[in-house]
């Protein structure tokens, strides 16, 4: 896998690095206070003082997009972290040991996987209170099956390889073999799925916040902003465009990265 020669990977890395830089800077500094209202500057079109214009309360849209992208990013990252951690443990153990527990868990996985994740997340949120932690929890739980499935398949494949047998001969216990030897070897297979999972999380968070069951005001999030922006589509189209463009850049960057990592045939 020669990453340097892969156009997808390079472009994806550039876009992602740009978004990450913007988000990191946004954590310590934004051009304006994202929540500061300015009655004299309502719904300004993009200009020098406000490069992306202002919203209905005179809040600077660039600052809000930066903060919203940060919020969306953190939620997606936390979601993937939950899904990945639980997926590694469940998939690792079932793939390594097999048996009836493996059967049951994989049946359950099939049932959950048959569902569109946004629909399930909506139902899960209905069981809790809307808000940032519920959305992380709901989406995180929903991502466990897909990660568990990939980890399980890989672990089951790797456990019959020679290096596992040698590790055992050297006296390594099951846990040591599984998490010390097999796990590092499945990372390359796992990375593209992590990027795809991240994108699904961004999309799901944006959709749920747009529907009003995700992040609650005054917290900013890209989906939440699109919800507000839709009411001012006629008078301030730049609001919706900016928030939407930020979502697209996030998803596009990680999508290209995952393809570069997957080593797919380049056009």
């Amino acid at each position, binding site marked *: 896998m020669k990453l340097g020669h892969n156009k997808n990977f390079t472009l994806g890395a550039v876009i992602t690095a740009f978004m990450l830089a913007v988000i990191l800077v946004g954590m310590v500094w934004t051009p304006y206070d994202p929540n500061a209202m300015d009655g004299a500057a309502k719904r300004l079109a993009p200009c020098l003082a406000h490069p992306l214009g202002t919203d209905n309360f005179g809040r600077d849209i660039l600052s809000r997009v930066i903060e919203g992208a940060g919020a969306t990013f953190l939620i997606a990252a936390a979601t993937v972290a939950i899904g990945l951690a639980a997926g590694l443990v469940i998939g690792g153990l079932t793939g390594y040991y097999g048996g009836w527990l493996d059967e049951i868990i994989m*049946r*359950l996985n*099939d*049932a959950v996987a*048959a*569902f*569109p*994740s*946004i*629909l399930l997340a*909506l*139902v*899960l*949120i*209905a*069981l*809790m209170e809307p808000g940032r932690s519920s959305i992380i929890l709901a989406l995180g739980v929903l991502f466990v099956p897909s990660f568990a499935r990939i980890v399980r398949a890989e672990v089951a494949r790797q456990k019959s390889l020679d290096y596992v047998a040698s590790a055992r001969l050297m006296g390594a216990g099951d846990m040591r073999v599984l998490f010390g030897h097999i796990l590092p070897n499945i990372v390359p297979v796992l990375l593209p799925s992590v990027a795809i999972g991240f*994108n699904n999380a961004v*999309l799901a968070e*944006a*959709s749920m916040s*747009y*529907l009003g*069951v995700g992040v609650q005001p005054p917290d900013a999030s890209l989906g939440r902003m*699109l919800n507000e*922006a*839709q009411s001012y*589509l*006629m008078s301030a*189209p730049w609001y*919706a*465009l900016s928030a*939407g463009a930020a*979502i*697209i850049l996030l*998803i*596009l960057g990680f*999508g*290209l990265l995952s393809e570069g990592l997957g080593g*797919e*045939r380049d*056009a």
Partner: protein
Amino acid sequence: MLVTLLLISLLAFLAFQIIPADPVTKLLGTDYTPERAAALRHELGLDRNVLVRYLDWLTGFVTGDLGVSYSYGMSVSDVMAGKGAVTAALSVMAWLLVIAISVPLGITLARWQGRRLDRVFVAMNQVFMAIPPFFLGILFTYIFGMVLKLFVPGGFILPEESLGGFFGYLFFPALAIALPKAAMVTKLLRSSILNQMDQDYVRTAYSRGNSRWSVIRTHVLRNAILPVVTFVAMTLADIVAGSIIVEQVFALPGLGRLLLASIGNRDYPVVQCIVVIIAAVVVFMNYLADVVTQYIDPRIRLG
């Protein structure tokens, strides 16, 4: 297939039993007294054993009795009447659009692989795959609704009033759902065809004097379409989910809005019903994909 469905319905049912939020509290509101709550709980049958209620609900569901909505006070099937048709029409339309766009486009791009047209579309595909359907819906509302005035945002037309107007209004929402999916299917079909081009049988076909186009049309397509069929069938699940959100963008009175309203009202019979119906559609589509795959490639046997 049946086992999966039963499992899903059981999960959907149990999920609403273990939660702290109580529909009775929500229904009574300020009229809440312990006696009234107990009476209402009895009336709704909520004081019986969970398993008994599940079996009750399941037999009702199978025989067409979908239960009674808590907040509307009428049967769930009456609440859903008409709304299901909107979501179904929207989803099917979006799904047909996905096929209508991606199949010709995927084949054409594979045919002209490496040329400028191919490279432009491959790059565009990548961007379209990254656009959330509801944002595309907002864009369409602005461009086609407000600037070009091709439709009236929020001006949904009932199918009873004008069938043409009904489908006309659904066109842009359907397109918003379809485009990102169509981009994925196009990409998959294109690379599936190109993967086949390295095979021995393709070289044999070339050596018999076939042109690239006739090799693709008569030999490659049948082999390349298999993974695409499975994927297209599975996209229907995402399309239904997408339509639930896009319905909000275009103010369509479909299942999505009903679902959101019912979640807000803790109207669980309605939520359960919608979830199980969508799950049934998804599971059935996957089954259908298996059947079609087997028809195209008789070597694959259903397990």
